[in-house]
């Protein structure tokens, strides 16, 4: 349906190759440094730099910052590198099917994204992890809380997208 990425209309990597790469990074973190993959804890690491509440003084946060913040910096670099190699880095507001179906301008997109971000930040930390920590590492490590969380966030996402793109802003000719 998507056919190509929003980023420079690039063709995506094969899913098997991308999945294998992610598995390789997950295993490298564990085998090199005894680290379990998990990115949403990085939000706590960033918050802990400015917020003094006990939640952000947990040992899991204070002792994880030293490796997780460099990993997060790498994610930024990886995105930038991908843009540079894929046709050049430039600031953009392009948002694919959102532009065609919902059609909000920059201010509307910022508000929409902020609302989404609030749910992501509060939800991932309440659940104890996100797609990486629960969905990839937790499932690979056969942890029950991760299975429950993964089913829950897939359900939340499916219901929301179905409401947004099939009921409220239906795309003409959508499959």
């Amino acid at each position: 349906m998507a056919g190509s990425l929003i980023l420079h209309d690039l063709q995506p990597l094969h899913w098997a190759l991308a999945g294998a790469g992610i598995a390789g990074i997950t295993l490298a973190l564990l085998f090199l440094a005894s680290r379990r993959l998990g990115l949403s804890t990085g939000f706590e690491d960033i918050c802990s730099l400015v917020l003094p509440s006990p939640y952000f003084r947990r040992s899991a946060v204070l002792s994880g910052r030293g490796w997780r913040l460099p990993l997060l910096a790498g994610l930024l670099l990886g995105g930038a590198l991908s843009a540079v190699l894929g046709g050049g880095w430039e600031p953009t507001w392009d948002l694919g099917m959102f532009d065609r179906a919902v059609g909000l301008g920059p201010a509307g997109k910022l508000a929409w994204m902020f609302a989404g971000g609030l749910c992501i930040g509060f939800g991932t930390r309440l659940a104890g992890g996100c797609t990486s920590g629960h969905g990839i590492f937790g499932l690979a490590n056969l942890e029950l809380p991760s299975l429950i969380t993964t089913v829950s966030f897939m359900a939340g996402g499916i219901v929301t997208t179905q409401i947004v793109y099939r009921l409220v802003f239906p795309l003409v000719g959508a499959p």
Partner: protein
Amino acid sequence: MTAVYVVLGTAFGFILSRSGAADYDYIQGMFLFSERQLYGIIGVAVALAAPGVWLIRRRGRTLFGRPIAIEMKALHRGNVLGGALFGVGWSIAGMCPGPILVNIGEGKLYALAALAGALVGTGALGALYPRLQPLLGLPPLRVGTGEG
């Protein structure tokens, strides 16, 4: 070791950027069941990581001989509630936590608002945690500087 984390993060970010995992349309396609790409990526990642994690944990030591010590996820009512709320956010923003950073790196300006929202949401959860903890059976806070 910091450089290793930056390199692994960069490789991860590049893959997320080029696979569709950090692409709004591919995320919506996954939730609309009109696109198999993301199911394939997550399925292969879990299927290949699972035997690797098992082998590494069985060996019990890192490549450099340090003991493997990882914290297990806690089971509580927040798994369902927080998971569902995160799913709503993933759908709205078209990004999960890692791809928020990848999208910012790519130059997608709206992703900055998603990051701001995520940090405010995390701060709010941190502030409410003492009240939510007994209500939802969340793990007690372990404040300190131990290994985590």
